């Protein structure tokens, strides 16, 4: 197998607040191959965004990466010099955020914000940069690009702003794009449009994609592989079909079970009782144990990630191996 384009190993990002240490990310490992789409799923507070920001080294005080390795195309990013990180960000690895309203600076024009992204990494003339920006806007499906370039963000709708952000992120054809809940703040109809756009663009440029979301349904059609996060750790990882067909971790099972399925109107939705633990006060063993119906004394010790079938790993002492496949 070729070398993965992105390899995260045992990443730990902690925040040192006055009240104590918040272990937002506590041992996350995954790999991403070129052109692959990974869906990173979890509830709010599970550490998905912190993982993403850690990869781009955008974690500010009082947080920092305390352990682990992040390799982008073989280059180690943890401990990397800031100047080198700056040259990588936006160029070889890019990120888009959740709220398109505030992703773009409201007092600067669109072309300003696009041209600066281009000239930060390449020496091109303003005219050449503007043309590239225009083509990028057209590529994400924004009509009458020349006028749009001279506009301000507040004159765009939410969906269009997100398209602009995507266009900016893909300007330098990065090897990896991390999308942190980019459609959560948008209307449902726009969501699927944006999804399709991103999928198509990434396929076309060979960009590997990490799609972060709390909505399992979104990644079902989009991702090649899926990783489920809980309380700062990945609890299950594998090819999307395998995970959906046979979820091993009780949490994953609960998540899938809570999805309404068309055609089964009267079937009750599964609920996972309780609430996720606060990252400031994680229980010592398996973090899901307090809410798990299958927990016992063994769960007082934190489980490791164990492969149960090729490529499909789970972090649980009692994975649900035997139960029948879910539709």
């Amino acid at each position, binding site marked *: 197998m070729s070398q993965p384009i992105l390899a995260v190993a045992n990443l730990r990002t902690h925040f040192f607040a006055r009240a104590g240490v918040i272990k937002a990310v506590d041992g996350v490992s995954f790999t991403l191959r070129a052109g692959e789409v990974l869906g990173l799923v979890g509830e709010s507070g599970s550490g998905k965004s912190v993982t993403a920001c850690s990869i*781009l080294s955008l974690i500010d005080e009082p947080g920092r990466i305390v352990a682990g390795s992040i390799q982008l195309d073989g280059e180690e990013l943890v401990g990397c010099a800031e100047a080198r990180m700056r040259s990588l*960000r936006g160029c070889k690895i890019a990120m888009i*955020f959740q709220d398109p309203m*505030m992703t773009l*600076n*409201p007092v600067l024009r669109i072309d300003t914000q696009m041209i600066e992204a281009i000239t930060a990494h390449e020496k091109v003339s303003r005219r050449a940069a503007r043309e590239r920006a225009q083509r990028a806007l057209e590529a994400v499906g924004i009509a009458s690009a020349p006028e749009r370039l001279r506009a*301000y963000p*507040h004159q*765009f709708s939410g969906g269009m702003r997100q398209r602009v952000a995507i266009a900016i992120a893909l300007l330098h054809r990065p090897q990896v794009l991390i999308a942190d809940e980019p459609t959560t703040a948008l209307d449902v109809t726009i969501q699927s449009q944006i999804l399709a756009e991103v999928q198509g663009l990434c396929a076309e440029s060979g960009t590997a994609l990490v799609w972060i979301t709390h909505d399992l349904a979104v990644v079902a059609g989009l991702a090649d592989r899926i990783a489920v996060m809980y309380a700062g750790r990945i609890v299950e990882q594998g090819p999307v079909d395998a995970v959906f067909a046979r979820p091993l971790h009780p949490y994953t099972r609960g998540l899938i079970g809570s999805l309404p399925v068309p055609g089964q109107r009267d079937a009750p939705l599964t609920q996972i009782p309780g609430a996720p633990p606060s990252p400031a006060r994680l229980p010592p063993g398996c973090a899901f144990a307090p809410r798990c119906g299958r927990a016992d004394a063994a769960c007082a010790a934190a489980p490791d990630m164990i492969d149960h079938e090729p490529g499909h790993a789970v972090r649980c002492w009692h994975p649900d191996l035997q139960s029948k496949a879910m539709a």
Partner: protein
Amino acid sequence: MLAFLLRRLAQGLLVVAAMATLVFVGVYALGNPIDILISPQADELEREQAIVRLGLDRPLWVQFAIFLKSALRGDLGTSFVHGVPAVDLILDRMPATLELAFVALILSIGIGIPAGLFAGLAPRSLSRRAIMTGSILGFSVPNFWLGLMLILLFAVELKVLPAGGRGETRTVFGIELSLLTLDGLRHLILPALTLAIYKASLIARLAYAGTRETLLQEFVRFARAKGLSPRRIVGVHVLKTIMIPVVTVTGLELGSMIGFAVVTETVFAWPGMGKLLIDSIYRLDRPVIVAYLVIIVIMFVVINFVVDVIYTLLDPRVRLSGQEA
């Protein structure tokens, strides 16, 4: 945007009208207009003439009409002390005050914004604390005492700068400016600095708060994710964002600066409107005081209006609020 500006203009005119009415009531109805407007040195004949001219023997509303007519003509009474129309006196001194106020304003921005920006960006809390505490010192120092101390230090002890007065001036478009001569600058620097320190401290605090807030914004994170250099992020993104509140407040403070100039001009014997006002108060030259009031109100209204215009130009959200792309 146009609607917004027109509304502000109308408001301003309303304020001027209200102020004029207030002044009229204060002088003609509540006060004794004879004492206020007619020089105590006038003899019997002059008094009679003045009473007729001002309509003081006519009903109040006639007096108001005469007052308004003269005011619109630019006649707001004649100075007792100098014997010339009060408006002329004030307009004569206005350039000096405006020059002082403008230079002080520029100084305060030039000191305040970098200080606040630096403090907002400083990773070490020590320099941040130092600048913020320094800014409190800056607006706690009494304006007049600061001026005195600067005179003490630079004029008396070190003898490098003059202790007061305005230096040589050069006339530009009919207005005398001391900015353009070296001697003028030497006379200008201390009063301008004194006037500027207070505002510089406030601006620094504003810039600091704005910077801290802006750095937390999502678009700054996105800018970093694009790989932009810190210089670009601070110099363009942060600066442009904090300029809006800073400019708004600063513009309004220009008026306050002209007010404070009264004190500074007295300390440094700067021949501006403010010193004229104080002198007039001492010498009971009431027409000048009345005229000063009216002119100052008009000035403030104009300043506020100009600030509104600048604000709409700076913030595209206000400027283009009518146009959805």
